[in-house]
């Protein structure tokens, strides 16, 4: 019987121009979404490529001078010497900055530490439009690296990107509401419900058939267009042969299915209330507004009110206080010179310039560390609050899940920044001892500079982050559907409640 109702419903839905229009609109929105998401990832990649090229060119310039110097000394059989820090270009035969590990690792050469986008990055732009996915690492204090500002029109940031994640979180529920709001009330209002009930079929089987047919149709569109989106963005970004991308795509389909189930359950529940179609629409659109717009705003508000992050402004004030304190401890005579322009320092001062500079960077870092730790701590506590409150709004849970699956989540970004900070230690450990021992660097060492490797997060790490939200939404969805179907037992086919 279920099969008959199912196929009957499918045929009926496919003959309704309104349904076809909606499904078409959903498909169009997804196509538009993947196009925008792919453009966002391409933009991000392009930005990193320019930075890598710039830094490679800078390294090459240092290396070229060094190689020329090595040839010069070898031809004449004279020993190579260590070059003190000097910002002016070397004269012929003069030892270049490339021999000085402090100058090289401290200001001339930078490692571009890249957070590579995942194979599914185009599906949910997340915070990608606000932050660069690369960090320039040198020996300066680490707070300068933590503010990875990317240029974008604040107006566009405010509006957000029309990506697949927007379509799924915001629009998909609207389509589900439109498909479900009059599943029973419509039949009742046109008088066909009583007629159908004269057949040997229970109301619940009848409803199950209607529900399953709608779920099947919608999921069919999502799988087909989702696959198209995957192929489109995958081929544009060259990740189609990456198994990780396909695992993530599978997770995306699963998360979308669970989220849809919630909204379908809500639709069945509202129908089980046995009210008019208009009332159903009113309730459902109110619920949509509450879950997708109001609750997320309230959750965000709660998190930022409960754990207000010290503003970056305060961080900056603290940094300047520390820098004033550090320079007060320094020798007065150097301050008459340009401490930032060594080319103007007398010869004997340049020997100590970098030592003083590095010492100041260290002092600064130590002084600001507590403020910075508090700053990051508050942000983590905010995230934790959002983590719990997302159980209230499946939309927040879904946003969290999609950002994780696409690799554009705050968690992944923070994990990346931790790796960058750790890498900077490695970078410093490579250059600082060589500088302090006045080791004369040669061109063969240039291939041995530490390189940043992000590595991949194992799928279980990603799964671990979304498990709670996915499970919660799944439970809510199943509970909602079960309760609604239980209610149907008391559904009056003729009278109104």
């Amino acid at each position, binding site marked *: 019987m279920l099969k008959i109702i199912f196929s009957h419903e499918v045929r009926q839905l496919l003959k309704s121009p309104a349904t076809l229009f909606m499904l078409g609109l959903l498909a169009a929105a997804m196509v538009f979404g993947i196009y*925008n998401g792919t*453009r966002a990832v391409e*933009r*991000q990649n392009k*930005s990193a490529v*320019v930075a890598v090229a710039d830094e490679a060119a800078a390294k090459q310039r240092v290396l070229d001078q060094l190689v020329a110097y090595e040839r010069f000394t070898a031809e004449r059989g004279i020993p190579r010497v260590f070059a003190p820090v000097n910002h002016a270009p070397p004269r012929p035969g003069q030892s270049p900055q490339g021999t000085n590990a402090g100058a090289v690792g401290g200001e001339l050469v930078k490692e571009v530490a890249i957070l590579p986008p995942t194979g599914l990055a185009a599906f949910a732009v*997340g*915070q990608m439009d*606000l932050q660069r996915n690369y960090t320039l690492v040198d020996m300066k204090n680490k707070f300068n690296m933590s*503010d990875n*500002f*990317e240029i974008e*029109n*604040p*107006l*566009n*940031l*405010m*509006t*957000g*990107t029309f990506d697949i994640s927007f379509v799924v979180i915001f*629009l998909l529920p*609207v389509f589900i509401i439109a498909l479900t709001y009059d599943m029973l009330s419509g039949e009742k209002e046109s008088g066909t419900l009583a007629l159908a009930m004269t057949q040997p079929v229970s109301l619940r089987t009848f409803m199950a058939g209607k529900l399953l047919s709608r779920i099947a149709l919608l999921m069919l569109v999502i799988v087909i267009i989702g696959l198209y989106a995957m192929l489109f963005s995958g081929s544009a970004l060259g990740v189609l042969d990456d198994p990780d991308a396909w695992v993530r795509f599978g997770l995306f389909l699963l998360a979308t299915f669970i989220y849809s189930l919630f909204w379908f359950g809500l639709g069945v529940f509202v129908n089980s209330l046995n009210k008019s179609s*208009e009332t159903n*629409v*009113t309730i459902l*659109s*109110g619920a949509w507004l509450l879950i997708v*717009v*109001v609750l*997320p*705003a309230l959750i*965000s*508000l709660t*998190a*930022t*009110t409960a754990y*207000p*992050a010290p*503003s970056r*402004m*305060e961080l*900056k*004030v603290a940094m*300047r206080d520390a820098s*004033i304190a550090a*320079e*007060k401890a320094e020798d*007065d005579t150097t*301050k*008459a010179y*340009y*401490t*930032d322009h060594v080319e103007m320092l007398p010869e004997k001062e340049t020997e100590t310039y970098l030592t003083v500079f590095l010492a100041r960077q260290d002092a600064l870092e130590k002084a600001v560390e507590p403020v910075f730790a508090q700053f990051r701590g508050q*942000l983590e506590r905010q995230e934790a609050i959002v983590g719990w409150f*997302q159980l209230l709004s499946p939309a*927040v849970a879904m946003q*969290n899940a999609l950002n994780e699956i696409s690799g554009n*989540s*705050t968690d992944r970004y923070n994990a990346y920044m931790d790796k960058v900070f750790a890498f900077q230690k490695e970078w410093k450990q490579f250059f600082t001892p060589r500088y302090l021992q006045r080791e004369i660097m040669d061109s063969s060492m240039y291939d041995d500079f530490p390189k940043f490797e992000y590595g991949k997060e194992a799928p279980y790490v990603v799964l671990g982050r979304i498990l709670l939200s996915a499970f919660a939404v799944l439970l809510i969805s199943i509970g909602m559907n079960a309760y609604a179907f239980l209610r149907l037992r008391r559904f009056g086919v003729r009278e109104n409640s």
Partner: protein
Amino acid sequence: MIRDIARKEFICLIRDGRFKWAIVIMLLLLMTSFLTGYQRYQSLHSIQEASQARDNEQWLSQDKKNPHTAAHFGNYAYKPQGTLAFFDNGIGNYAGSVVWLEAHKTNFAQNRPAQDNGAVSRFGDLTPAMTLQVLLPLLIVLMGFSAFAGERESGTLRQVMSLGVSSRTLLLGKLLGTSAAVGLVALPAILIGVGVLTFGLPGDNAQVGQRGLLLLLFYLLYALAFLFLTLGVSAVARTAKGALIALIGFWAMATFILPKAAADISKMVTPTPTYSEFYHLARQTSLEGMKGAKGLLALPQGRHIETARRQLLKQYKVASVRDLPIYWVAYSMQIIEDRDYAIYQKFLGQLRETFFRQQAVQDRFGLLSPLIPLRSLSMATSGTGLVDQERFNQTVQDFRIGMIRQMNNELIENTTMKDPLYIAGEEVFGKVKPYRYNPPTLSESFEGQRMNLVLLAAWCALMAAFAFAAVRRLRAQ
């Protein structure tokens, strides 16, 4: 007669359980949004004030040092919010509010709250403006969709029409009744807003009264447009259900889908350069010279300085910079500063133009959604839009070049190549007056908003015309 119809409509709405809930929820949300808007404004305002004051202090109390090193230490400039930011925070969460002004480097405004608040903040803030822009129209739709269609279904429309009520009277009555019910929600909001403004918020209060009145007018036009649309659709639709579905569809399209689609389309039309592209181009131009520029700017940096050096030697009739009565090193640094200022002005200007062009593209979608002109007007009136941000971005760069010139001139005039040592203290640093942001006047705020004004008024007028036309052809069945 109009009064009778209005009263009937009002009472029916008030007594309906659905609307009781809607009104209560809406009221609660409005209250919450006003309270949190007020709280956010207060806390941000005090942090900004304190940070700017502390920074001015730090600038003066920094250790005695070479003035050029002081320029490296630099200043932070903070953008104060306008008073009406408590109502409409606009791009506040997404635009930087503090810039580091230092020697040799042109920096962007940073400290965007959205970057630090986690992804959930991207759902949008619950500000009074957002509540009125997004939730109010839905409330209007829910209250008005059955005004005609519902009565037609229950058969009462035939009775009313048989009394010989003119279509105009009927529409105006329904309009008044529904507005009164919606007003139950909107009125407290207006009172709170006026209260907050009268009893004062700290901060800049210039023309705040006029701005408040303008906001009232804009939101009224917006609400009326939705009200007329709702009544018109209700009159045309065959069933109440059909009217509701169509109206909610329009609402979702106008408030959620179109603004987002417009932003993405504007990015396609005029792409935003990335951070690395921007600096790559600016640095390259600084080194190699600006193509198409006149005079020294077109030359590579080295030749620019060389030319200036020769001019200077000629002017003072000396053979070497060592014999100059002024300090050549600081002089040459200032040449680069002035050169870079001109170059960055060009690229920052292009970026600004990109942003405004994107806004213009988005504003054009106001033809399809009344939210878009309202949103732009609301931000412009509240002083939280692009115009205000770009004014800040521009004035801080002007302040920066002034500060650096002041510091370098100290060196140029007081030292020479033979005797370059110089230590400056508070009396020299104090010559740099603290940065102050001057918000735009009302007429400056509305530059470029003409189309939005026309569009919003047109939406209201067209919807009114539609409603009258729809009611004139009203059928009882």
